[in-house]
């Protein structure tokens, strides 16, 4: 009996956190012990694969027998023995653990370019990357393309920077190429400081060679011999895999002196950032590499003229670089046609919040927000209704239902008051308070302000203070106008993108959900019943049957009442934790 068996275990960060490594070793153990007793397998390997995006279902495991793939979800080490016995040995897949329809919907509506290798190949092995066509693009660029030709291809692919601002990558490279200098740098921005974002992380962990290949091509296009990958130190797995990839490239002659047998040298180093959001900003990032405090510097010069150590520098995002090899291999037209007239290609988003399917997704630019939320995301969780989509990370805005048919690209999102940013998408349903949501994001940006300029350092703090007083029931007439004035002030006067975009969550919610602010201020009510200071919990006596579940659950002893008779919550003692609300099976507790 000859079987060709492959087992793929999700070992991205989500997978590792859910026990991917343990699942992997459980499979290894079963296989090797079985292999010792009877050599019934011709080929069998347990590969470590990077992120496959569908984090809600981690740990995901593919069992492929003679080319037939079965995907299991939520696999724990103690489940491995059964899969091994029933499926691998006896050929009967364990049906109750197999992923359902949602998994296929999630994947089928996407177009995977940047993520195409993630979850499919072993990121720690350069040969796995080469086997899927890796480094062909770089070889092509070195063997048969002039720098101008590379720049032209990138320009006509319509690729725009995936770090947020959407600057056309080809034009950036052209500037880098035109400027004469003894030293030039290529930098990859892998700082990814947005809370909840893990697009770049997944690429660096799941397909590190694609990022490096993109950088090598950029080096050739701009005549640069030195590169840095700036990765936050909180991404140890990304750092480890990138370093392994760099070392393998050096051994293979793809990095170092005389790469691909030419007289061109390119030296690549990793620089670990210490985890400041602002260090993702290009000038702050370069100061950080220089050993200075990561503070943005005024753009008297473009980075392409004077960047790192005042030398011409081309800086791109991880995803931007990872697109490059595909563009070189498949041609500019292919990429361009994937997107809209204004922006080519696909974009990776991290879809989270109140949708059924959460995780990383990759879609062509130009799909509608509705497609993303209702097809790929599978719609809103529970029987709730959609309220808003927050895009662009902490400095993005909230988009209401009326704009769900917006086709996603840089300009269209800006038009509706949000941004593309690095690709965060948080779905909010009717249980989300928009004032509280705005406060949540502003808390982050104001704390991460580098402190250099007045509007961002003090202005965002003052906005936050106003929001705090509104959500705690102390809002005053005029607060909305003050928020608007401050928001526009900070946007207009800040030095860098952090300050310029920090008011977005507030300004966009004021634009679309102004009535919620008004209820908080005038009626002292939180319509979504989220803001603690504005809600009270009480028992509906007609429904309460006195089961006592709430009383037992309450950590503050605020529930009064005898068994089998209606209970009552003492508002003086209640700490509004909501435990009773969740504990009551009869929906007898209400919050208003």
């Amino acid at each position: 009996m000859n079987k060709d068996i492959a087992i793929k275990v999700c070992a991205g960060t989500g997978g590792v956190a859910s026990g991917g490594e343990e699942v992997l070793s459980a499979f290894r153990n079963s296989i090797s012990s079985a292999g010792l007793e009877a050599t019934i397998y011709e080929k069998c390997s347990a590969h470590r694969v990077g992120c496959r995006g569908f984090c809600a279902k981690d740990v995901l495991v593919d069992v492929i027998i003679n080319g037939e793939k079965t995907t299991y979800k939520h696999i724990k080490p103690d489940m491995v023995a059964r899969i091994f016995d029933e499926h691998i040995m006896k050929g009967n897949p364990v049906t109750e653990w197999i992923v359902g329809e949602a998994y296929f919907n999630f994947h089928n509506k996407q177009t995977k370019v940047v993520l195409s290798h993630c979850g499919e190949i072993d990121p720690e092995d350069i040969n796995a990357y080469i086997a899927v066509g890796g480094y062909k693009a770089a070889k092509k660029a070195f063997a048969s393309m002039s720098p101008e030709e590379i720049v032209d291809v990138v320009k006509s692919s319509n690729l725009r920077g995936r770090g947020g601002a959407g600057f056309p990558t080809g034009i950036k490279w052209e500037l880098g190429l035109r400027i004469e200098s003894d030293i030039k740098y290529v930098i990859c921005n892998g700082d990814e400081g947005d809370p909840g974002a893990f697009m770049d992380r997944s690429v660096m962990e799941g397909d590190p060679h694609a990022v490096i290949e993109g950088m090598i091509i950029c080096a050739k296009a701009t005549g640069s011999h030195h590169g840095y990958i700036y990765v936050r130190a909180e991404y140890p797995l990304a750092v480890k895999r990138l370093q392994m990839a760099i070392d393998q490239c050096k051994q293979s002659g793809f990095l170092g002196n005389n790469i691909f047998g030419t007289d061109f040298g390119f030296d690549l180093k990793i620089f670990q950032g210490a985890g400041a959001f602002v260090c993702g900003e290009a000038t702050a990032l370069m100061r950080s590499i220089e050993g200075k405090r990561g503070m943005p510097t005024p753009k008297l010069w473009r980075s392409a003229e004077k960047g790192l150590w005042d030398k011409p520098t081309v800086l791109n995002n991880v995803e931007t670089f990872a697109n490059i090899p595909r563009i070189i291999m498949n041609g500019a037209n292919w990429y361009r046609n994937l997107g809209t007239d204004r922006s080519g290609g696909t974009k990776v988003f991290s879809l989270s919040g109140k949708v059924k399917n959460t995780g990383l997704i990759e879609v062509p630019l130009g799909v509608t927000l509705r497609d993303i939320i209702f097809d790929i995301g599978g719609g809103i969780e529970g029987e709730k209704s959609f309220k808003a989509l927050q895009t662009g990370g902490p400095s993005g805005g909230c988009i209401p239902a009326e704009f769900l048919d917006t086709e996603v690209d840089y300009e269209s999102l800006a038009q509706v008051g949000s941004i593309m940013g690095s690709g965060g998408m948080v779905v909010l349903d009717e249980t989300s308070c928009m004032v509280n949501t705005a406060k949540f994001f502003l808390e982050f940006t104001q704390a991460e302000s580098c402190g250099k300029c007045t509007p961002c350092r003090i202005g965002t703090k003052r906005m936050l203070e106003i929001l705090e007083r509104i959500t705690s029931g102390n809002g005053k007439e005029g607060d909305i106008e003050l928020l608007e004035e401050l928001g526009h002030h900070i946007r207009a006067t800040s030095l860098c993108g952090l300050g310029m975009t920090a008011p977005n969550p507030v300004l966009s919610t004021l634009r679309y959900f102004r009535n919620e602010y008004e209820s908080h201020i005038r009626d002292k009510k939180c319509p979504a019943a989220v803001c603690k200071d504005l809600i009270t919990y009480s028992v509906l006596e007609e429904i309460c049957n006195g089961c006592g579940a709430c009383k037992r659950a309450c950590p503050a002893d605020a529930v009064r009442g005898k068994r089998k008779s209606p209970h009552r919550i003492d508002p003086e003692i209640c700490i509004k934790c909501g435990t009773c609300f969740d504990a009551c099976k009869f929906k007898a507790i209400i919050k208003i």
Partner: protein
Amino acid sequence: MVTLKIDGKKVTVRKLSTVLDAARKLDIPIPTLCHHPELSPFGGCRLCLIEIKGYPKPVASCTTFAKEGMEIITASPSLEKLRRTTLELILSDHPKDCMVCERAGDCKLQELAYFYGIRENRFEGERRIYTKKDNNPFVAREMEKCILCGQCVRICDEIQGVGAIDFAYRGLKTKICPPFEKDLDCEFCGQCVSVCPTGALTGKMWAHKGRQNFKEVETVCPYCGCGCNLTLHVWRNEVIRVSSKEDTINEGWLCAKGRFGYGFIHSPDRLAKPLIRTAPKEGVDLNKPQNSSRFTIHDSQFKEVSWDEALDYIAVKLKETKEKYGSDAVGGLSSARCTNEENYLFQKFIRAVIGTNNVDHCARY
């Protein structure tokens, strides 16, 4: 050279000048708090915003190069409103104790608040509060008054080459401090004090000595041959502060001695007239000094004399010594505090008049 128009007036400036430079050339006032012409561009305070025709939003004039044909507006109702709000924000995180502040009347922030008439503040809120720990005798730091213009950090690094302080923390908690928030322990040149636009950094010895009605007396620093220009702040015949102006040969920079070493002026121990030693103090044995291993001034008796008397006395003694023991029995030691001319004359005197090469100088001839 590039020519541009500011508020309707044409001006030609050198390439790589900023719009602010160009406006200053025309004497057009643009408020600034973080700009310093000798330090690297910073762009932090955001007060110097101006409008450029064709630009979507205001830009900071201190960090924008002047370009050929630019048309610039430095004051408009919307610009003034932005500046006012920025000032309000700065003041909302600033103690209101101008009354007792060392820099009142000499503070750029106070002056701007005055010009913009800011009395009420719409943005009152949390302020930074710090505990003081300054055990040095020179620099007093009241960091609540700091507006984070970064001039102290830049001057310390870029001009002084010391780097004793930098920014720390993020958000509203950002502050300027020595490494690990330790006590300041540096050269104490006080360059930071000289550029601080507010009362955050002051000289410790300035405290409670007077802020108004002092006379400014221009002089030259007596400490070394560099000859830095000093401005003495004199009040009731007492020097209460020393500063230096930007348009001097030393560009306003001073060292610790020039800036803070003025205590000797009014010291009771200071020699103001020449003294001639007449005899050892009573009971002092010249071979056994009293207080230390060396024979000092405190072991002697002196007579106050005029300069003529003193010089005559020296001339006589030198002549006697030379005649009796020969030229090489005399040596001359001069000082780096003297000017080049004085030092030249001194060595000439020793060589040509006394006739010996025994001449040196604390910084060597």
